[in-house]
């Protein structure tokens, strides 16, 4: 039902004005303080950010600057202590109930008692997809992350990188408009990472999903994003937001282009400023 609605919404929108930005996530003066008194941690301070439909937003910054916390706020896993945050015009909690999110954690977190295919089915079972639909989607996403051969295997029979791909497949299996990924490729080697980055871009271009992506890698952030959010810690805040001028089509060798190097430089400067302040 929801899919039908959102599809007509998109179509309707496209007819009126194809370029108009449609805000999906809107944070205004968002604050989050963990604990109180002496032990209070100001994890997010006065965060203002708008993520539009179809954006690929990377969050980059030193450890403890609140990247994970912000993602968790969007997914209604954390309750902000101040400011406002809306997702698709709803509260994060309502958006969660409308199943707007696919979340990929740093650790794959597959259920050891389920096969890979069954793990990917988990959200589909919960959301009440039909058996036939479940099987069809599992086959689709397994192919997408190149794990067709491994559907019947158990997680412990797969390498860490393969497990992480399976957990991405799990988040892709249902039609969440927003994909939140917290350092999904942190534990993978460079080559696999490049490959998955390419695939992720293709997937994003094809599905028009909105993606929030946490990373510690400057090249990864620049290669993937339409918008790069640089953050700094104590208190966790946004120090720079960079709109990428790179085209939507991005072959891997775009990383050698002048435009790419310039953005990467600006991100590095932003990170350095955050460190010394």
């Amino acid at each position, binding site marked *: 039902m929801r899919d039908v609605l959102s599809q007509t919404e998109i179509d309707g929108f496209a007819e009126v004005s194809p370029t108009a930005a449609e805000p999906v996530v809107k944070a205004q003066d968002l604050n989050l303080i963990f604990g109180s008194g002496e032990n209070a941690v100001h994890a997010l301070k006065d965060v203002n950010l708008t993520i539009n439909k179809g954006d690929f937003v990377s969050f980059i910054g030193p450890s403890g600057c609140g990247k994970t916390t912000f993602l*968790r706020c969007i*997914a*209604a*896993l954390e309750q902000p202590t101040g400011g406002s945050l809306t997702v698709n015009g709803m509260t994060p909690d309502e958006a*969660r*109930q*409308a*199943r707007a*999110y*696919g*979340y990929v*954690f740093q*650790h794959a*977190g597959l*259920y*050891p*008692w*389920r*096969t890979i295919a069954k793990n990917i089915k*988990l*959200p589909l*079972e*919960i*959301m009440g997809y039909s058996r036939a639909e479940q099987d069809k989607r599992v086959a689709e996403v397994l192919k997408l992350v190149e794990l067709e051969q491994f559907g019947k295997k*158990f997680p*412990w029979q797969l390498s860490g990188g393969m497990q992480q791909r399976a957990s991405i497949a799990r988040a892709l299996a*249902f039609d969440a408009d927003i994909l939140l990924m917290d350092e999904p490729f942190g534990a993978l080697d460079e080559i696999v990472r490049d490959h998955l980055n390419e695939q992720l871009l293709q997937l994003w271009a094809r599905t028009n999903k909105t993606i929030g992506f946490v990373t510690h890698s400057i090249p990864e952030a620049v290669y993937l994003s339409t918008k790069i959010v640089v953050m700094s810690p104590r208190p966790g805040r946004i120090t720079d937001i960079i709109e990428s001028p790179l085209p939507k089509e991005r072959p891997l060798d775009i990383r050698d282009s002048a435009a790419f190097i310039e953005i990467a430089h600006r991100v590095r400067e932003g990170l350095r400023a955050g460190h010394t302040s």
Partner: protein
Amino acid sequence: MKTVMSVLAVLAVIVAFWYAACVPMNIKGVLDAAERAGEHVTPAAARDRRDAGALGLVAGNTFVIARSWSVDRPRLPAPHQVAMELWETTVEKKITSKRSLIYHGKITLSSTLLGFAIGTGLGVLLAVGIVHSKVMDMSVMPWAIVSQTIPIIALAPMIIVVLYSVGVQGLLPKAIIAAYLSFFPVVVGMVKGLRSPDHMQLDLLKTYGANTAQGFWKLRLPSSMPYLFASLKIGIAASLVGAIVGELPTGAVAGFGARLLAGSYYGQTVQIWSALFAAAILAASLVAILGLVERLILARMGVKS
């Protein structure tokens, strides 16, 4: 092979120790019998022997050591006496005979299993309630703990009497006493197991908009399986103890409890010991069966063991 040898070595040490213990334990009776048969023992007077230390008597009368392993009604029967009694009362007796340990074992086993089923069911239900309701956590858990501090031996007769007065007798009262002992480890283990999924796994379900029931069936219950089986093994052994204790107040007509009680009435230590061993063997077999079921289920769940 090496482990088998080690296990056998430990067993041999235990048996040797047991044989050694038989000598001082039974020496006085052996010496009395020898004196009645006209043999020369030191000290010669029964009164002197009564006050003498057992080890001193053994040192003074080394010629009777072998006899202390084949006394008719020993204080401590020797291993082979118990083994022979076990053999005679299981293999050589008809199962329907009142002297067959198999007959008594079946009676104890039926109340053990019924009590285990009741206790496990109750324990799992309580655990589910405790994990999902703060009120139950705070109100039920303390009582469950208090219930285990009351000695079962004091409680058993009351349960029997109360149930008898409402017309319930036979298997059920014994099973309830068994359940009383076995539900507790199941509650504790199951609560721990149902709470074992980490934050990330619970958060993931939240992002799917899963409800509590889905969280239970898809995450909490499967995660709790290893914990459940650990508690079931304790629970079934406790259930057997409960079933035996439950047989005592009813006048102990049948079951291992009856054999124990009758044995102590008539000073039949061999009978007591063989009933004890039969109970221990039964408990070990039940635990082993549960271990097998656990291996099968966890293997089917794909958990590497």
